[in-house]
C-alpha cells in the first residue's frame, strides 16, 4: 500500500466480504477489523467497490477544510471534465469553478498531456529491441508490476504522470508557489501525492476525490455561458478512457504504431502474464488501466462510467496540436521536465526464508498444513483462501485454530477425551467393591 486507501474502523464489521475481492490477496480480517498488508496492496480500489458498509474509501484530504482556503488551486484529472453534461468542456468547467473561487490548471494539463504523448512517441520510436513499453499512467498497474512482475519494471515508460508535469510547468512558467490539490478519480492516483514512484517528491500537496468536488458544484447549480474563458484543447480528456493515451501517442507517429489497450484488473493481469511469457512480439506499447473502461470507472468518480464514456465518444478531438502548441511541446520536451527522475524498482514480497533449504522446508510445511484445511475458502479465518491461511501460519502470522473447522475438530477431539477421562475412576473408588 502506498497510502491510497483508508479504512474507517468505526464502520468495519469485519464481515470479510472485501478480502476475496482483492486481486493481490492483500487484505486480512484480524480481531474483527479489516487490515491491509502494505507490501501487497496496489491501491486499485477493488475493496472499496466490494464494501457494503463504506468502511473503505479513497485516502483523500478533508475537502470541507481545503475548500475554505482563499484562491485554492486544483489540478484535476481528465475524468473530472466529463462528469457533468453542462460542464463537459474544460472552459465551461473553469467558469463553474470560478464561481466558487476555485481555479484549475486545465490549460497547463492540456500542454502536459500533449508533452507526455510526444515524449512517449519519441521513446518508443528510439527503443530498438526493448519493446513493448508499458504505460506509466495508472499507478495501480505500476504497483502490480513492481510486486508481481519484477521482470517487467524495465519496460515501464520513464515518462511521469502529466498531472505532475502540468504543475511543474505551471510553477516554472509563472513562478507560482501556491500549493496544489489533485482532484483524483481513484485511490491509485492519490498515491501520486502520498507516495510517488519514480520521483523524490510530488509537485502536488493535497488530494481530494472527483466525487466530492463535483457534488459541491452540482449543489450550487451554476449556469455557465462559455464566453468568459478561452477554449482549451480536449484531446487529453480521452486519457480517461481505455485506449485514449495510445491514440494520443499514435498521433505523433508518422508510420505504423502497434498498441494493445486493456482495462480492468483481470485483463491487465492476463496481458502482463502474456507479455512476461514473451507472447507479445511486434507490439510497441501496452496501455493497462486497473478500472473497467479506464479512469472513468474509478472508485472516486461521481458519474456513471457509461455516461462518461458516451460524453467522451462525442468528443471530436483535434489530434494535431497547432503550430504554436507544437513549439511549446518541443521546447518543454528539450528541457526533460517530463522524465521520471528515479527508476521504477521491483518490490517483490519476501520469500518464506532467505535460505533456500529453509524455504523449501517451510513450503513443505505449508503444503502439509494446507492439506488438512477444508479447501472451501470460506474466509471466516480472515484470510482470502485456505492457501493464504497456510502461508500466514508458516510465516508466523496465524495459527491452525484460526480455521473454524479445525477449531471444531479440536473441540470434538477434546470433548471425546474429557468423556473418556471422566469415565476413569481412581483405584480406591472402584465400583466393584462395596464401601463400608
Amino acid at each position, binding site marked *: 500500500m502506498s497510502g491510497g486507501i483508508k479504512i474507517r474502523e468505526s464502520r468495519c464489521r469485519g464481515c470479510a466480504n472485501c478480502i476475496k475481492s482483492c486481486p493481490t490477496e492483500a487484505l486480512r480480517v484480524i480481531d474483527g477489523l479489516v487490515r491491509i498488508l502494505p507490501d501487497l496492496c496496489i491501491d486499485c480500489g477493488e475493496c472499496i467497490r466490494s464494501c457494503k458498509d463504506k468502511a473503505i474509501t479513497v485516502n483523500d484530504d478533508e475537502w470541507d477544510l481545503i475548500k475554505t482556503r482563499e484562491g485554492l488551486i486544483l489540478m484535476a484529472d481528465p475524468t473530472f471534465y466529463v462528469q457533468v453534461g453542462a460542464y463537459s468542456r474544460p472552459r465551461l468547467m473553469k467558469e463553474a469553478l470560478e464561481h466558487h473561487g476555485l481555479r484549475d490548471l486545465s490549460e497547463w494539463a492540456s500542454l502536459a498531456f500533449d508533452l507526455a504523448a510526444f515524449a512517449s512517441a519519441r521513446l518508443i520510436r528510439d527503443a530498438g529491441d526493448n519493446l513493448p513499453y508499458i504505460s506509466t499512467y495508472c499507478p495501480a498497474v505500476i504497483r502490480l508490476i513492481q510486486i508481481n512482475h*519484477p*521482470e517487467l519494471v524495465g519496460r515501464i515508460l520513464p515518462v511521469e504522470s502529466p498531472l505532475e508535469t502540468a504543475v511543474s510547468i505551471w510553477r516554472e512558467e509563472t513562478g507560482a508557489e501556491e500549493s496544489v490539490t489533485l482532484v483524483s478519480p481513484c485511490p491509485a492516483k492519490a498515491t501520486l501525492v502520498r507516495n510517488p514512484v519514480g520521483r523524490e517528491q510530488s509537485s502536488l500537496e493535497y488530494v481530494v476525490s472527483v466525487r466530492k468536488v463535483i457534488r459541491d458544484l452540482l449543489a450550487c447549480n451554476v449556469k455557465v455561458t462559455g464566453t468568459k474563458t478561452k477554449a482549451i484543447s480536449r484531446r487529453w480528456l480521452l486519457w480517461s478512457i481505455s485506449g485514449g493515451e495510445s491514440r494520443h501517442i499514435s498521433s505523433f507517429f508518422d508510420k505504423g504504431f502497434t498498441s494493445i489497450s486493456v482495462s480492468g484488473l483481470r485483463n491487465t493481469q492476463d496481458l502482463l*502474464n*502474456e507479455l*512476461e*511469457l*514473451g507472447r507479445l512480439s511486434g507490439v510497441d506499447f501496452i496501455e493497462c488501466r486497473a478500472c473497467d473502461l479506464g479512469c472513468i470507472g474509478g472508485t472516486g468518480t461521481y458519474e456513471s462510467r457509461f455516461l462518461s464514456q458516451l460524453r467522451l465518444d462525442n468528443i471530436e478531438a483535434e489530434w494535431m496540436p497547432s503550430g504554436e502548441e507544437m513549439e511549446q511541446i518541443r521546447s518543454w520536451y528539450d528541457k526533460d521536465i517530463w522524465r521520471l527522475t528515479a527508476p521504477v524498482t*521491483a518490490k*517483490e*514480497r*519476501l*520469500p*518464506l*526464508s*532467505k535460505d*533456500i*533449504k529453509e*524455504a*523449501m*522446508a517451510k*513450503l*513443505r510445511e505449508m503444503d502439509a498444513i494446507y492439506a488438512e484445511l477444508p479447501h472451501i475458502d470460506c474466509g471466516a479465518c480472515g484470510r482470502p483462501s485456505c492457501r493464504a491461511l497456510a*502461508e500466514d501460519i508458516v510465516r508466523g502470522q496465524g495459527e491452525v485454530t484460526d480455521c473454524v473447522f479445525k477449531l471444531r475438530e479440536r473441540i470434538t477431539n477434546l470433548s471425546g477425551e474429557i468423556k473418556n477421562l471422566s469415565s476413569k475412576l481412581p483405584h480406591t473408588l472402584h465400583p466393584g467393591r462395596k464401601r463400608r
Partner: protein
Amino acid sequence: MEEYAILAGDFSAIGEASTKFKATLKMLGIPSDLVRRASVIAYEAEMNALIHGGGGVLRMTVYDDRLEIVARDEGPGIPDVSLAMQEGYSTATDEIRELGFGAGMGLPNIDRNADSLLIETEIDKGTTLLATVIFPSP
C-alpha cells in the same frame, strides 16, 4: 539434498502450470530472472504437450542448486529432434497456426532459457523432456 517437487498434471488452461510454478518459485526466493526463464520453459513445454502430445504431465523439482522441469506426453513422438530444434520448423496443423501457435519457436525457446536440455522420444509412444536451470552460486 533438499528438494521440492510440484506437479501440474492434466493441465487444461493455457499457462496454468507456469503460473503455478511461478508462485512457488517466488516463495522460495528464487531470483526473478530465473523465475522468468522457468516460466517460459514450463509454458512452452505445456504448449508443446497440448499441441502435439494431446496433453501430458509437467513436474518441476527444485534443488538447492538447480531446478528441473520434466514434461511427459504420450503423443506421436518427434521423428527428427535436431530438425524440431530449428527455429521456425513446426509440424503444427493450420488450425493451430491460426490460433497464433505452432510458429516453430517452442523447443528453441526452451533451449534458449534452459542451461541444459534432454529430449527422449519414441515414435507413437511419446516424448519426455528434461530442462535444467542452474542457480548461480551465492
